[in-house]
């Protein structure tokens, strides 16, 4: 029971080989085994979105994925995307708009927003609200977040 598995994954661009217990979910693995505490846990039943990370380039609920399922796959966290600079404009917009207060929902919110910007470059304000409706924020009331994402959509469109 609970036999540890060896997994090899690409984590924030780097290959890692680790031993994981099958029952450990991906965010616990990231936080406890990899020291990447930027991904947060708010509910562990897949509803709040605080745990949102990227698996093979797509956002997923990290609390609903097992670490062992990351074997042979690529995982990106807020730290990796931050250091890689790919969401710099989004982060700048969040700071400029004060689209975060306590910051606990922010990594998950950024991951979700980054996928929207990538997939729907002409998203409307309403589209943005619908897209981020899977990420709970108790502090901001959402408007500043929507404003920040819209800022980036507009800027990227103008630059394109």
């Amino acid at each position, binding site marked *: *029971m*609970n*036999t540890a*598995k060896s997994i090899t994954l690409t984590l924030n661009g780097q290959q890692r080989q680790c031993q994981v*217990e*099958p*029952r450990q*979910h991906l965010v*616990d693995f990231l936080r406890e085994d990899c020291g990447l505490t930027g991904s947060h846990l708010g509910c*562990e*039943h*897949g509803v709040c*979105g605080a745990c*949102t990370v990227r*698996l093979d380039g*797509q*956002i*997923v*609920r990290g*609390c*609903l*994925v*097992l670490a*062992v*399922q990351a*074997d042979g796959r690529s995982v990106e966290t807020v730290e990796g995307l931050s250091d890689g600079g790919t969401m710099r404009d989004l982060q700048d917009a969040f700071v400029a708009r004060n689209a975060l207060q306590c910051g606990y929902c922010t990594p998950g919110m950024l991951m*979700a927003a980054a*996928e*929207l910007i990538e997939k729907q470059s002409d998203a409307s304000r309403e589209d943005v609200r*619908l*897209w981020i*409706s*899977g*990420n709970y924020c108790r502090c901001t009331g959402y408007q500043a977040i929507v404003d920040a994402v819209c800022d980036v959509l507009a800027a990227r469109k103008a630059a394109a």
Partner: protein
Amino acid sequence: MKAPAFDYAKPASLSAVFALMAEHGDEARLLAGGQTLMATLNMRLSEPALLIDINAVADLKGITVQAGVLRIGALATHTDVEASALVAEHAPLLAMAAPHIAHRAIRNLGTFGGSIAYADPSAEWPACLMALDGVVVVRSVSAERRIAAKDFFLDLYTTALKPDELIVACEVPVKQAADAFAFDELARRHGDYAIVGLAVAAERVSGGAWGASGLTKLRLAYLGMGTTPLRARHTESRFTHQVLTSARLDEAVASLLAELNPLADLTNSAATKRHLAGVLARRLLGALLESKQ
């Protein structure tokens, strides 16, 4: 809440899956998208000894069209279905329903087969499959069965799947020129399990010498009304051969209100659900009748 301990296997073939299922029986659970299973495990509502991850089984993947049938592999994710050009063209009802399923991050992993197998009466795919008179293709180590949707959903979270079977695909007939579809659900928050939802399939008849224009071969599949997705068969039967016209819309809704016997949920009485079911039907059918497309 941390999941209890279990073992994990990821077989690469169906036969290997069946071997593990046979060996472990009800101590094993199949892991597809995991969007329901993982939450259940995190809350320790279930304590399997083994998770059989079926995501490596190629036979379960893909969305294809052949001989008038759209086949959706059990492992097709909700996002796959949402983004599929084949689905958009051949089963637009599914494309209408997809954006209502939870949220993007869930859709990226949750699977069509998983949703059908779990058979939540408030889920979108079971109701859509019922509306389209689809087929669930299941396999055991020895045989393949094709189960009509109407025979598949038996009770709350209970399907016709036998313990040694798994879903390999679902099939729906492709859209014909005269087919019309509609889908909507009433949820207090976008992405929540809906209070009530309705998947409509019908055939358009245009007016002229043959009679009034409207809808016939009506199929009305509700979600959120009972322990399984429910077809309003009595009301449908009025408009299987007859035409539902704008003038007969009131009659259809009255028939639904008389026929439907919903179960209450935490915040909605049976009366409320029945009322909302009628409102949804009026709106969707009314819009279809008006749009003539």
